[in-house]
């Protein structure tokens, strides 16, 4: 096994080693040039010499295995790998952009900035979970914001992938990951729950919003364990200008029990994108840590903390989908509304992890002939909001599981598609026009356009009457 690090100018398997850009405990990173991949590249070389930590070998193996399996804009593209037996290295895309840690130093940030960065990160985390992977080391220095605003997760040395043996399982006695950000279940060695990343996402949101880390930076095992029962100071106690809804989202992510957290990172992104739809609870309003009773209860639960789920990460996330019901509130059609409700009832049961977003698209106020446009617009919105709420009433979904959205747009199909993409909708339910509307069929109805271009599953519902 090779232990030496290359010098700039050296050529490894056709890659010319350039400037050293990072030197850490586990390895060294160089810029490299070579067989043209169409994007700039870096080479990561693990430290494997005598006296180097044994973890470097395993985390190298893990990163190579996981990175090769991942696709999409939220991870660096994998290029090549060298074997541990001769020259271990990993060549991947050099992600242009800025590290999220640049923003953390400037906290507390304005709410709009927290939402922008947090949504980008939540979207990236969810993209990973959909591919059966869990990062398990989400922290500002492992996130790069591309110039376009997209977040990219880097460093998969501690990751878990449901399709591959977890080489880090039961490997090292002490918890792995970065102390300020890792979840309580990671502290006790559980590595297969995607909601661990949701917790870390909450810790990052907390830091962006307050400038402080929710649990500090504990150096001892007992300091780490305390997050199993002790909740952080509410963000509003540190920064009073943090809105209640944002505190609600942050503390919802930071629940000690994974079952109490958001079921998916997509749901976090959804709430960040729709502050007016966040169902406020005591979490959003509290000004101090929870009382002794709640802490004792968590402490008792933590003592028996051993849930080893057999669910793979992808299956867990799939059990918490976002369903969009497109309701045409401008046209009252009770048969169609009932057919839509029947279809939605099969997908969303009260109390489950599924989220329902009820959406209607109305004509923009500018197209209305009205003397007082703003006033007309507001009353229009309220009217359609009332219709949406009424449509969903008999589904009997608790607050927090259902939300209502009136979108003003002249092209309903385009608006629904944009909404589905933005909010990582998993399943879109929409009514078909009545069969006798031949002209609509000829010109292409909203439902045909939506089902042709949707990024998700679409159910087109037709009333049988």
């Amino acid at each position, binding site marked *: 096994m090779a232990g030496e690090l290359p010098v700039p100018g050296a050529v490894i398997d056709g890659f010319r080693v350039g400037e050293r850009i990072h030197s850490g405990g586990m390895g060294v990173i160089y810029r490299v040039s070579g067989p043209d991949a169409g994007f700039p590249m870096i080479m990561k070389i693990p430290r494997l010499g005598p006296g180097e930590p044994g973890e470097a070998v395993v985390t190298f*193996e893990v990163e190579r*295995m996981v990175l090769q399996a991942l696709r999409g804009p939220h991870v660096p593209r994998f290029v090549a790998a060298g074997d541990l037996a001769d020259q271990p290295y990993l060549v991947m895309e050099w992600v242009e952009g800025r590290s999220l840690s640049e923003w953390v130093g400037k906290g507390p940030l304005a709410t709009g900035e927290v939402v922008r960065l947090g949504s980008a990160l939540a979207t990236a985390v969810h993209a990973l979970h959909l591919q059966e992977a869990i990062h398990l080391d989400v922290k500002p220095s492992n996130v790069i914001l591309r110039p376009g605003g997209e977040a990219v997760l880097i460093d998969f040395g501690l990751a878990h992938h449901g399709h*591959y*043996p977890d080489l880090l399982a039961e*490997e090292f006695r002490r918890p792995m990951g970065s102390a300020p950000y890792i979840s309580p279940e990671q502290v006790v060695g559980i590595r297969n729950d995607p909601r661990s990343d949701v917790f870390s996402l909450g810790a990052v949101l907390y830091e962006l919003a307050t400038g402080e880390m929710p649990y500090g930076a504990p150096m001892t095992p007992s300091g780490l364990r305390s997050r199993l029962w002790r909740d952080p100071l509410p963000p509003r106690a540190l920064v009073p200008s943090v809105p209640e809804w944002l505190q609600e989202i942050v503390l919802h992510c930071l629940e000690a029990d994974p079952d109490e957290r958001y079921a998916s990172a997509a749901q976090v992104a959804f709430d960040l994108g729709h502050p007016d739809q966040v169902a406020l609870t005591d979490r959003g309003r509290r000004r101090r840590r929870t009382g002794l009773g709640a802490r004792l209860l968590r402490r008792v639960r933590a003592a028996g903390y051993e849930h080893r789920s057999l669910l793979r990460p992808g299956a867990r996330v799939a059990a918490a989908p976002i369903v969009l019901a497109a309701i045409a509130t401008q046209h009252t059609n009770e048969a169609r509304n009932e057919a839509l409700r029947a279809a939605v009832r099969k997908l969303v049961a009260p109390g489950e992890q599924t989220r329902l977003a009820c959406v209607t698209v109305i004509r923009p106020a500018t197209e209305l002939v009205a003397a007082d446009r703003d006033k007309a617009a507001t009353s229009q919105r309220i009217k359609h909001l009332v219709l949406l709420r009424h449509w969903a009433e008999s589904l009997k979904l608790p607050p927090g599981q259902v939300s209502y959205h009136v979108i003003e747009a002249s092209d309903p199909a385009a608006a629904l598609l944009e909404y589905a993409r933005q909010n990582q909708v998993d399943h879109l339910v929409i009514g078909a026009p009545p069969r006798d509307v031949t002209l609509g069929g000829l010109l292409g109805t909203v439902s045909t356009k939506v089902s042709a271009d949707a990024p998700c599953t679409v159910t087109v519902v037709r009333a049988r009457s």
Partner: protein
Amino acid sequence: MKLALLADIHANLEALAACLAHAGEQGAERHAFLGDLVGYGADPAAVVDLVQAHASRGAIVVRGNHDQAALEGESETMNQAAEQAIAWTRARLSDGQRAFLSGLPLLAREGDMVFVHASADAPSRWIYVSDPLRAAHSLEAAAGASYVFSGHVHEPVLYFTGQAARPVAFRPVPGVPIPVSPRRRWLAIVGAAGQPRDGNTAACYALLDTERATLTFQRVPYDWQAAAAKVRAAGLPVRLARRLAQGE
């Protein structure tokens, strides 16, 4: 080189044929049969002939407890249905087929690979490698080998070792090539081709790619209705037909 690993065929010709065809499409050049060619199913003679033909072309074959029982009589560890099937099987094997089975080794070794029906630790005791401790014993007995391939336990599992005292179990996902670096040690239970028991009726086998050092666990849907009908027609215990229909 791609090596197809098949275990627990149990005289299920439909399952064996489906696995061999699938492995062929995947580019398998060699085969290893990890024991229990017969028992339970209705086609012992045809299955033994097919495996023997592969053996003559260089396939690795080891003996399982059902093969042994078909030669020597009931084993005390067998349940009633298995015993009945063995008695039925014995009457259907020719001298040549019996000679082939009795000539099989309990354990085969090739390079850094060990092939054994049950545990490499006392192969003739037919120990079920059903937990990390037993996997550790089998791996210890196969000292020097990076890979131990077995059957006997009908559900596919991959055990691997790291720095921890005991191997860790992983439930593989069908069709995903798993990197299996020879720097570690691996014990793969490839799953039953002829009598799956994890609630999925599809036949199990695994494919080792020695150049890429990857192991892919496969599931192959096969005509279990035909295999189950033969079991019933042969007068074998009905329970054995039902197992194929339920995959358990």
